[in-house]
């Protein structure tokens, strides 16, 4: 029988261990610092610090014409930069009053849903990695590569895409883009099914995630959760349904909703959203194929004053040259007004609050970054849990450092 060894009074003043999880810790997948007070392996208190990659985007945007702000938005949530780009274009179009042709809307849906898949795919497979199952990550990663190849075909770049322009796309989708899209639609479902089979009813995975990092619907709303994290808690709020943009109202899809708001539900909600995104891409692609002849060549709205013309037109057409010059030199005044527009980003409601005083650049631009807002719930989510649960909670919240700091 071992008895409690009583230490002399005052020999150990501090009963807990302080641990710095981050800012550069391999388990945090990004620059996050969490100062944890540990009692053994149990977290008594957590304090999060943000701001390690702050890049003053809002200040920068105050001196840039609208089209130069698109590359800034890439760097917010870099796992799904096309959604950020589109969200910015949609904001500008709302301010400028530009109506888009239906075909452009559907093409945008294809790109946005592809990037939603690439975002969720990374998040879910990283949850797998953090719970000790590396294989799922390897299975799914090749499809992110395929998605990036589609981006490359459309806009020429992969990670920070700068895709599209105000009023549409920079060029029509090539045949290769559609071939790659068809290839994706044909092969991805099988792999996703396999991924689900590996994880969803896997006892080890369930034990690691069920009840971990749970949050109630009420708390989640109070903390400003949006996106998959809020839906996992049981609130069916989705910007695509509540304030449809880019013709999402033409598609049929359901909003998967969880119940407990724990890591397992977040995982399941993201998986279901990938299936929904797949079906949305199929529907949108079918609608795109219905455009024939001259309609199938439409890839931007007819707004010469704001749409940056194609390079070949710039070299051959007078008007295109004039507008190209005016836009590039930032000599186009934008109408005065204030507009808030939001899209359903990979992590939730990505909002843009744009105030224009009628000048050439925004007077004030604010990004509503979903990550930044729901990250404050992290200490509450991990308190009382184990250290290893904090890591898995962090990855299942899909915290992206770029979106956190702006």
């Amino acid at each position, binding site marked *: 029988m071992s008895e409690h060894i009583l230490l002399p009074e005052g020999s150990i003043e501090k009963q807990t261990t302080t641990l710095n999880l981050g800012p550069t810790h391999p388990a945090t997948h990004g620059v996050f610092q969490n100062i944890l007070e540990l009692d053994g392996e149990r977290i008594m208190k957590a304090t999060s610090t*943000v*701001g390690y990659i*702050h890049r*003053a985007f*809002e*200040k*920068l945007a*105050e*001196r840039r014409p609208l089209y130069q702000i698109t590359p800034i938005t890439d760097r917010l949530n870099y796992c799904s930069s096309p959604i950020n780009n589109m969200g910015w274009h949609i904001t500008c179009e*709302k*301010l400028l009053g530009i109506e888009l042709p239906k075909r452009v809307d559907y093409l945008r849906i294809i790109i946005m849903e592809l990037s939603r898949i690439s975002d969720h795919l990374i998040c879910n497979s990283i949850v797998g990695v953090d719970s000790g199952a590396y294989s799922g990550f390897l299975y799914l990663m090749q499809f992110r590569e395929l998605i990036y190849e589609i981006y490359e075909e459309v806009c020429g770049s992969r990670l920070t895409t700068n895709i599209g322009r105000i009023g549409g796309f920079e060029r029509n989708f090539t045949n290769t883009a559609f071939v790659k899209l068809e290839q994706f639609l044909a092969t991805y479902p099988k792999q996703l099914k396999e991924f689900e089979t590996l994880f969803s009813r896997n006892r080890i995975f369930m034990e690691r995630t069920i009840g971990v990092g749970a949050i109630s619907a009420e*708390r989640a*709303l*109070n*903390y*400003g959760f949006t996106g998959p994290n809020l839906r996992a808690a049981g*609130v069916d*709020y989705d910007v695509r349904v*509540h*304030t449809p943009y880019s013709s999402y109202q033409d598609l049929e899809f359901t909003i998967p909703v969880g119940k407990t708001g724990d890591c397992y539900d977040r995982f399941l909600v993201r998986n279901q959203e990938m299936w929904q995104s797949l079906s949305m891409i199929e529907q949108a692609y079918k609608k795109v194929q219905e455009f024939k002849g001259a309609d199938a060549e439409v890839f931007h709205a007819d707004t010469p004053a704001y749409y940056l013309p194609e390079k070949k037109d710039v070299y051959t057409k007078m008007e295109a040259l004039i507008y190209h010059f005016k836009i590039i030199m930032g000599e186009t005044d934008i109408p005065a*007004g*204030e*507009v*808030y527009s*939001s899209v359903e980003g990979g992590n939730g*409601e990505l*909002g843009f*609050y744009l*105030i224009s005083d009628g000048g050439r650049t925004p*007077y*004030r631009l*604010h990004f*509503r970054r979903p990550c*930044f*807002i*729901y*990250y*404050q*719930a992290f200490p509450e989510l991990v308190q009382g849990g184990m250290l290893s649960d904090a890591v898995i909670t962090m990855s299942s919240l899909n915290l992206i450092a770029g979106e956190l*700091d*702006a």
Partner: protein
Amino acid sequence: MPLNNEKIQQILTEKFGDQLTDWQEPYGMLTFTGPKESNLKVLQFLFDEPSLGFRFLTDLQAVHYPDNKGQELAVVYHLHNLVDNIRIRFKVFTDITQPDVFSATALYQSANFMERETYDFFGVNFTGHPNLIRILNVDEMDYFPMRKEFPLEDQTRSDKDDEMFGR
């Protein structure tokens, strides 16, 4: 009957009378201004009143209008009623020499970081905030960088000799 902008305006005017001014609807979103002393009263009423139910704080930020003497800083709240799916924008103006605004953290947990960010960039002093310290900038910073008196570097400046970047 679903909630609409006219109805919100009517309910709020009944409660607060002339305190709320500057009613506008830019791009369909009801926008109004209130006195900074009663910002919490308005937010609380919007939160509690069953016919309004603005229980989701979408966004909170500030705007600096240097020419608006005595009311240089505007704190802008974007609120969302998720049931009726309607958004409103509520503004509060404050003097830049004494930028005290009541904190909404007791009402919305989400306001915590957002108010810290607003303080960090504009210096709005949220009274009642549990932990009003800088969040994105370094702690040693002694100015508020998003204010308009801090312009970005002039790209045409020539006094800087920087071999690395060719200027």
